Structures are given as structure tokens and as C-alpha cells.
């Protein structure tokens, strides 16, 4: 079985984002970019399935700028077999990504798509669900455990109330949560091999997908600085203050 893993190039999770002074977005110039951590988990899971003999090919795909090739190479250094870049410098919203992925799926025919539950830059948490809807496939989101059989996949989901286990017929979409696994460090020989693995570059128009944004970003601002706390003498004062603030 083939597994498709979409990966996104995002601001490195170690960095503190700065908002551009004109409020149009986050300043990404000269900022270290890395693979979205949830996607790394997805790549890791797919590779583990391949290593366990349950999948025979792992394809990573990214939709984004030319630089996203680096992200794809990272995926291949971890162990993915080949990569597809759908290159665009435009902003792509979850729906556009899902539509492109649908077209890629049509071409590649994977038995499963494993992807991050969300990207840490826009925190949308939509693409996997939209893709499942567009394809009419089963979905197991927020996975903390994935067990693959020949015709079904059992996914343990992290839901608000605890853990929920669902069994999905294949093909299916799985989106990953943080506790699913701990991604490996790429081995040096694999980094070198990754350079020679195939990487196809396509464009959204190859898939005849219109990626025009449906949303308009009005303004991006820094979160307010946390204000200094205040020590109150007793519980009554605390309650009174909270009431005055409309917090209780």
C-alpha cells in the first residue's frame, strides 16, 4: 500500500513569531522555517508502517514555495521514498490545499493519507477533514495510535473527554496528534540519499485547481502583553474584583 503524507513548511516551532509592522501578517523574512511538527509525526508514522511491512511506498507532498523542497527533502531524509512539490508562492487556504491534495490522490491512488491535524502557523485544523469530505473517505482525526490491517485502520483519537477508538475502512484519512509518536532524527547517510530521491515539481494549474483565497486577512496583531498581576487581601475582594471585571 502507498501512503501519502502532506507536509507544510512553517515557521520553526522554537521561534517567537514577530508581526509585520503594517499588520499584514507574520514577518517571515530570514526566519528559520521547518517542517510543521504535526506533519513530522505523520511522516514518522508512515515510515514506521513501511518499516513494519504494512506499506510499500511513502510519498510526501507539499504545496508551497520552491523552498518547500527543503521540507520535502527532510521528509525523504527521514525515510519517505519520493516527493511532490506543488509549487506556488500564493497564499493557499485549507480548502485549496484539500482540493489540490484530492487531485494528487486521484493520480497517486494511496491507500491512506496521514497528515498533521493542523499547521502551527495558522492552526486551522481543517485540511484533513475537508480532504476526507471531498474524497468521500473515512477520517480518523487527532490520532494518538494507528493500527493498520489489510482492509481497515484502527485509530485511537484524542478527544476532549478522553480517548475514542474508531475503525475505518480503507482508503482513509488520518490526522496526527502530538502523542502519536516521537519523530526520529534523520540519519546522515539518509540525508545524503534524500538528495537523490525523486522530487517532482508541479503547479496548481497542472491539477486545474483554483486556489484563489476565499478569506481576506484584515489585520494581524501581537497578542497583548500580559499585565502585571495584583495581590488581593482576601477572597471577598477577589470575588468583588472578578465581578467588576465581568469574569464571574
Amino acid at each position, binding site marked *: 500500500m502507498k501512503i501519502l503524507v502532506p507536509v507544510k513548511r512553517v515557521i520553526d516551532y*522554537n521561534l517567537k513569531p514577530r508581526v509585520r509592522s503594517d499588520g499584514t501578517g507574520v514577518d517571515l*523574512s*530570514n526566519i*528559520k522555517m*521547518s517542517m510543521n511538527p504535526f506533519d513530522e509525526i505523520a511522516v514518522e508514522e508512515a515510515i514506521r508502517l513501511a518499516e513494519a511491512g504494512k506499506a510499500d511506498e511513502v510519498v510526501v507532498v507539499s504545496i508551497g514555495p520552491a523552498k518547500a*523542497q*527543503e521540507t520535502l*527533502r*527532510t521528509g525523504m*531524509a527521514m525515510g519517505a521514498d519520493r516527493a511532490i512539490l506543488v509549487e506556488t508562492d500564493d497564499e493557499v487556504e485549507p480548502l485549496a490545499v484539500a482540493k489540490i491534495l484530492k487531485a494528487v490522490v486521484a493520480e497517486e491512488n494511496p491507500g491512506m493519507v496521514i497528515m498533521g491535524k493542523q499547521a502551527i502557523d495558522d492552526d486551522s485544523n481543517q485540511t484533513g477533514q475537508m480532504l476526507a469530505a471531498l474524497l468521500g473517505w473515512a477520517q480518523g482525526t487527532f490520532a494518538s495510535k494507528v493500527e493498520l490491517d489489510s482492509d481497515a485502520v484502527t485509530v485511537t483519537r484524542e478527544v476532549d473527554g478522553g480517548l475514542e477508538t474508531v475503525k475505518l475502512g480503507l482508503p482513509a484519512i488520518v490526522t496526527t496528534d502530538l502523542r502519536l509518536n516521537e519523530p526520529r*532524527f*534523520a*540519519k*546522515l*547517510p539518509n*540525508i*545524503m540519499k*534524500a*538528495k537523490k530521491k525523486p522530487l517532482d515539481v508541479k503547479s496548481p494549474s497542472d491539477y486545474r485547481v483554483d486556489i484563489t483565497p476565499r478569506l481576506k486577512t484584515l489585520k494581524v496583531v501581537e497578542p497583548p502583553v500580559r499585565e502585571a498581576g495584583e495581590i488581593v487581601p482576601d477572597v471577598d475582594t477577589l470575588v468583588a474584583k472578578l465581578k467588576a471585571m465581568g469574569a464571574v
Partner: protein
Amino acid sequence: MQVYEAPIRDMRFVLDELWVDDGFGDIPALEEFDSDLTSAILEEAAKFSREVLLPLNRSGDEEGCVLENGVVRTPEGFKDAYKQFTESGWASLAADPEWGGQGLPERVNKLVEEMTCSTNLSFGLYPGLTHGGAIALEAHGSEDLKNLYLPKMTSGEWSGTMCLTESHCGTDLGMLRTKAEPQEDGSYKVSGSKIFISAGDHDLSDNIIHLVLARLPDAPAGVKGISLFLVPKYLPNDDGTPGPSNGVSCSALEHKMGLKASATCQMQFEESTGWLVGEPHQGLAAMFTMMNAERLSVGIQGVGIGEAAYQSAVWYAKDRLQGRSLSGAKYPDKPADPIIVHPDVRRMLMTMRCYNEGCRMLGGWVARALDAEKHSQDPEVKARATDFVALMTPIVKALFTDLGHESANLAVQVYGGHGYIRESGVEQYARDARIAMIYEGTNGIQALDLVGRKMGQNTGRLLRSFFHPVSDFIEASKGDGPMKPMIDGLEKALGALQLSTATIAQKGLKDPEEAGAAATEYLRLFGLVAMGYCFARATMISDMKLAFGTEEKEFYDAKIKTATFFFERILPQVSANFLAIKAGKKSMMALSEEQF
């Protein structure tokens, strides 16, 4: 707090931009390593050092190594980290693919080494010594020894040591006493005591391969009677697995100022079976194959610690609120300004920054020469590279470690009293950095190597491998542009270096003590000029990038500002060193021993 993010952008500047026209490029064997690939390697190394090595730095320092029931245990987490390190291929980075290495260029390897040193110097010693040992074995060992030991040492399954020092001899190895008795089967029985042996015993690898300097029964006295032996901790079985113990034991661990997670061992060899590496009585020369590679790596230890200290100091200087800016409050809404506003704190941060960037640039140049020495197909380039590496090795070792230690000290100062407190993390840098000035030949000995051997070798041919490119650069860059003050400054500094060279050559010929008395200042002067050259090139490139337009304005602008600080505030030390050299040995040797 120990904060560290690998300075990848600066490393890429050194790797891809600074030295493109130095004549050491264009090596077909290394074509594969284009900037995409080296970038990916640096990124992954950065991630590994930050996520695996850095978290073990402070805990390793607190815990240290312990000797229990005759075996050494490394601090918690080291074993696991070593396993990950070797399995990921970082230990065999620069090793020859013939033995299972990755064959990476030295110019990349040295940058990865820097990251390891920044995040965990103690840890870095274990694979570092193994690599050094493998180099000596590769150059001088018999085919049998190489086939048996090199694959395992390359993969890191087995580790290595270098056993030179004995209690009565460190610098002067001519006095060493460890003996080797020839056996019927061509092997030797090695007996003696060594001290200060890094990684002498530990629990990281399955076997430990000691490269031991010892004397044969018929050995002439002094350094001409020393031979090199390979002595494993466990004698390998026929199938290559570690077999019976070989009479090698660690009798004590040294109690050290720093580098605590590195096991520094007193070693006993009791009729341990060993094999000769290289020719009888040629052991010192064979060991020097390893020492030269190691000396460059020890230099990198200096930059590594310097960088970590700098980053930790910058973080604190932005965080610590104390006093107000002399030009009026910069953060009136806060109870005080962060200390980074104060000129004296700036002096410290800028000095550290200059040292790190200057050493990284210079190290990058030497590393390119190492690659050319190894791989160039042009005999002329190869010869020039060999000269240059020989000349610069003592400079890289001594200058980088002196400056690295100075940076670590400055970081403590930036932290004030908090820097003196263990939890701050920066006093560890000062303790750890200190050893690099001592081992692999003290920095004093490096300076003697420079004036005593390298300077006069082949009537100054080695020197020309440095002087020529620098004076060519100055000639080509003259003019009235914005670079004029720098080029003028560099020209004067180079003049002082050339004059000092002539003075030492002249006086030293008649009186070797004159050369000895000038050595340390000469090495520093040399290093300052070399860093000046690097900064001038960096400025020229940055000017050009800015003129043509770049998305990375901040980076190039900072580079020029840093270079300017170097030229205005650090390079003038050339004059002080020049004057000291000129004064000669007289006042240095004037006091009688009784007057001390």
C-alpha cells in the same frame, strides 16, 4: 541560562560565500556536497545538538563520571545520546567511506564539530578521540589492523583514545617509560601507567582501542625511541566481537576543574597485548598525524564554547534590568533598562561576537585547505594547501582556544554575580573552555611550533601561503571607497607581522631564547592579522550584497558593523604585540631564579 541555536546563517556565509575564490575550491570529489545538501546536514546537526546534547550539558557537569568496581560510568543520558549520535552517522561524518564513513568535506565537518562543542564539549571528546585514533591507524596501521579495527571505530561501536601522557612527562614525551616487549607472534606486551587519558574507560562503546606511546627494549633515549601501539581493552575474537580482557584498567579518575562528563583516566597497562602501528621508533611522528587533526578540532572547541557563551550572554543582557542608559532611559515603562544598553556590556558582547565570527571564518578557510590537501587533483594547489594547513594549525589551536576561554570569561562577567553561580550555566563554559588551552600541546608549545618550526620551514615557504593571498587582497582592494580605513588598517597590521617575522628570524637564529620569548605574542599577532583579513573580506562581500540588493539586509549590515568593531577596537592589539616582540627577551629573562 545555557541557550543555544546553531549560528547556521553565519556558518553558511563561511561555507558558501566567503572563500569562493581562495583557490581551494573546485574539487570534483566534493561536488556532490552542494549547498542544498550541506544546508540539510547543518540543519539536522543543529537539531540534534540542541535537542539531544544540550540538555545533557549541565546535568553531565553536575553529575560527572564515576569509577565503580573498576569500570567508569558516564553521566545519565550519555549512553543513550552516544547511541543516537553514532547510529545517526554523526561520528563517522568525515571518515573515509572505505571504512564506512560518510566522507563529508572537512569544511562541513568542522562546523558540525562546532555545534557539538557548543552544546556538550565533554560529550564531543568521546567520538572526537575515536576519530583521531582512526586517522592515525589509517595512515600508519597494517592492513590487518585496519581491516579489523577501522570499520568498528568508524561506526563508533568501538571508541578510541590517545595515551601519551605519563605523570612525569606531558610536553616532553622523550622521557616516557611505558614499555613494549616483542612476542614470538609479532605482537607486543605493553606495560606502564598513563595519566590524563580522555575517554580511557567508559560505558559508551563495546570496546576501547588505545593508541599507546611506549618504548621498545632497544629504543634509543629521548623522542627518537618512542613507538606507537594499538592496545584494545578487550582482545577481539575471531568473529570480531570483543573477547577477553587485555590487562588494561582505569585505576582512578582525575578530579577536574571542568569537562566533568568526560572521563579523564589514569590507565594501567599490565602486559597488555598490543600491535605496532607504523615503524619502530617512529611513534611520535605517527601520533602527530592524529595530533594535527586533533589540534584543529581542539581549536574548534574554543569557537564552540565561545559561541555558546556569547549566545547565553546576549540572552541575559536583553533580559536583565539594571540601571539606566547613559543617554536617557530606553525603556521608561520598565523599572530599569536591560543591561545591553550599557557601553561596557556592549564591549563584552561585541568582543565575543568578533572572536566567534573571526575564528569561524578563519577556521573555514583552513578547513577548505584541509579538503584541498586531501582531494585536489592539482599538485600545486595540494602543495599550497599542505603548507597552509601546517602553518595555521598551531594558530587555530592556540588562538581559538585563548579567545574561546576569554569569551567564556566575558560571559560570566556579563552575568555579574549570577554568572558565578552554578545555576546560571555560564561558569561551566569558563571551566570547560580552560582545558582546550592545555591539552593537545599547550598553547605555549603551539607558539613555539609556529616560530620554531613553521616560520622558517623551507625558507619561509609556509608563510607565503598566508602572506601572498593577504597582500594580493590588499593590493586589489586599494582605493578611496568605503573600505579604505579597513584596507589601510589591514596593510599596517600585515606590515607589523612581516616586520616581527623578520625580527624573530634574525634574532632567533643567533639566540633561540629570543624566538621563545616572542612566540606567544607572535602567534597572537598572526591570529589578529588573519582575523582582520577575514573581516575585511566579509565586509567587501557584504557591501556588495547590500549594493546589489538582498533580502538579508540585517545579516550583512550586522556583519559590517561587527567587522568595523574588530578593526577599531580589537585589531589595534597588533601594536602592543609588535612592541612586545620588538623589546625582545631581555626583561623576561632578567630576574635571577632566586629573585622569584
